[in-house]
């Protein structure tokens, strides 16, 4: 029987997941002379919540951008659902089934919450100019479907009461949740969240983590970038640690917690002794 308790993950018992949904295969990303990602490989398996952590500037967001098609890897490739991303356009990558949120919120500020979600829902609609102009059945069906989906997702994200408010007038926390709703509306196989709890207090963070778990339980795979170690440990099934663009660890939360390389990366022990050692 799957997941009797929510903290099954923190006990370290390995959960069973499906085949890899997304594989980073030896991805290197250079900007001029700067190596932002250096030979990074890892898998995201179907149905898991994968945490991507690392100190500031470790390349988390770059990694994110590489796997949502914002950046093209200099070397290596990203394979999603058996298909290499190659040089697909960004919206095509979204249609393959990867959706994301942004570290600094990027909603359509002058559209209502509902309209924001509808834009996401439109990604799997097909009605174009002719259908819209003549209000053909396809347009009507998709409009109804989109509105239903938007309502569901807004309720899921606890935003049902704000559906007709402009995105810019929502509170910070609501805006973060609205971004998740918009991303979910594209019906992704993989949902990528870039520091979704940034700026939250502990209570809000806890609530968000419950939400993320709920999203996963609905059948989504989640990639989560997060700063707060405790939080990541609580919610993720597996963790990948980056430092200076390199992967330094990959494993269960319990393993990561005791990994000397990770501890060193976060506390800077090695560096300090190194500096002291070489005057």
């Amino acid at each position, binding site marked *: 029987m799957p997941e009797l308790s929510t903290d099954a993950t923190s006990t370290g018992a390995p959960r069973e997941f499906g085949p890899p949904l997304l594989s980073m295969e030896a991805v290197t990303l250079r900007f001029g002379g700067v190596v932002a990602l250096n030979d990074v490989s890892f898998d995201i398996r179907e149905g898991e919540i994968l945490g991507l952590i690392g100190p500031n500037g470790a390349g988390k967001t770059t990694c994110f951008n590489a796997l949502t098609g914002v950046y093209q890897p200099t070397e290596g490739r990203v394979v999603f659902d058996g298909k290499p991303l190659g040089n697909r356009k960004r919206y095509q990558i979204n249609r393959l089934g990867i959706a994301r949120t942004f570290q600094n919120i990027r*909603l359509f500020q002058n559209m209502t919450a509902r309209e924001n979600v509808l834009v996401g829902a439109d990604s799997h609609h097909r009605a174009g*100019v002719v259908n819209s102009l003549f209000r053909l059945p396809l347009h009507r069906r998709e409009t109804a479907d989109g509105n239903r989906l938007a309502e569901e997702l807004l309720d899921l994200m606890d935003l049902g009461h704000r559906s007709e408010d402009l995105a810019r007038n929502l509170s910070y926390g609501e805006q973060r949740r609205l971004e998740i709703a918009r991303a979910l509306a594209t019906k992704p196989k993989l949902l990528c969240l870039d520091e979704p709890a940034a700026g939250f207090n502990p209570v809000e963070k806890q609530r968000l983590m419950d939400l993320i778990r709920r999203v996963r339980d609905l059948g989504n795979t989640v990639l989560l970038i997060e700063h707060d170690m405790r939080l990541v440990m609580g919610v993720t099934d597996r963790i990948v640690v980056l430092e200076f663009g390199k992967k330094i660890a990959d494993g269960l939360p319990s393993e990561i917690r005791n990994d000397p390389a990770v501890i060193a990366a976060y506390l800077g022990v090695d560096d300090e002794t190194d500096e002291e050692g070489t005057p």
Partner: protein
Amino acid sequence: MSTPTTTARPPRLTFGERWSRLPKPVKIVLWVVLALLVYALPLLNPPILSTPDSDFGSVMFTVASYGLVALGLNIVLGYAGLLDLGYVGFYAIGAYTVAVFGSLHGKVPFVLLIVLAVCISTASGLLLGAPTLRVRGDYLAIVTLGFGEIVRLVFLNTQWFNGARGITDVPRPPSLDLFDVPQLQWDGFTAYVDLGTQSTFLKFGLLDGIPYYWLTLTVIIIVLIADVLLQSSRVGRAWEATREDEEAAELNGVPTFRYKLLAFAMGAFIGGLSGALYAARTGVVNPETFIIQLSILFLAAVVIGGQGNRWGVLLGAVVVAYLPERFREFAEFRVLAFGLLLLLLANFRPQGLLPPRRARRAKAAAQELEELEHSGAAGGDTKEGGIRA
């Protein structure tokens, strides 16, 4: 104790709210009445509205064609957020298509000419947009500015287009000649029917501008309906999202380039159509007509009126095209006046005379918030005062 700051003020209804509360049949009747009034405007010659120094029917045609252009440019600028400074190029292409194939190099029937004009200007929009819509903001403005000038210079310097001489004898729309409609004339504020100046229903002649006005107004109404249907659909949402944040839109599955190109093509379609109607009305096209200043006037109509609001840009077209004709004595100062108006607008109504829904809603919400905070603070004050006393 009397109730403090939160007085039971009757809720102020905006025009839009009142309007949306009306039952549907009433709305339809009101729409029809309004449309009929607008159609009849040049026949009624209302004393204050009518232009004393020039033929009111012709002025109304000019206003209507500016309105049509403004609606087209509004799709490009107001919905998709693309700054197009060369919109006059499409207008010129529409006008020249009618002139070239209707008079100079052929005798194509009028209806076909319009279709041809629209097709060619739309195609030119696609051709211009496909490479240039990859650049953003200021760059796009410069590229389109260049396009507008290039179109004019090509017409000016190509013998096949008759160069600087322009083209005359542009065909007029086929007339119907059904019946005569008398006009009202005014002696002070008393009206009398003037049987001397009659307008023949749909006789597209040289002098009477009213049939052309009716034709253009009909086109405007069709475009308006299409505009409403499109903006409230998936297409309109995609434009809005693209304008708001192109990258976020793209990453949420909106093929932004395709939608920008669509907006551009639609703008070119409407621009070409109004150019064709212009050529049919004046009977003459000349490269001198399609100078860059016309682009700026079109843009002014959209910006003054309120980009993104179809009623706003129509109002803007009225301001730009009608006022200089009404106050002919000041017509020479028209550019100065627009400059001043734009400055004042930028200061007091940065979203235009009639801001789009989104700006209005945002403002209302901000006001509400402020009032809430204010009343909260004021309530606190009175309480404190009470304790102190």
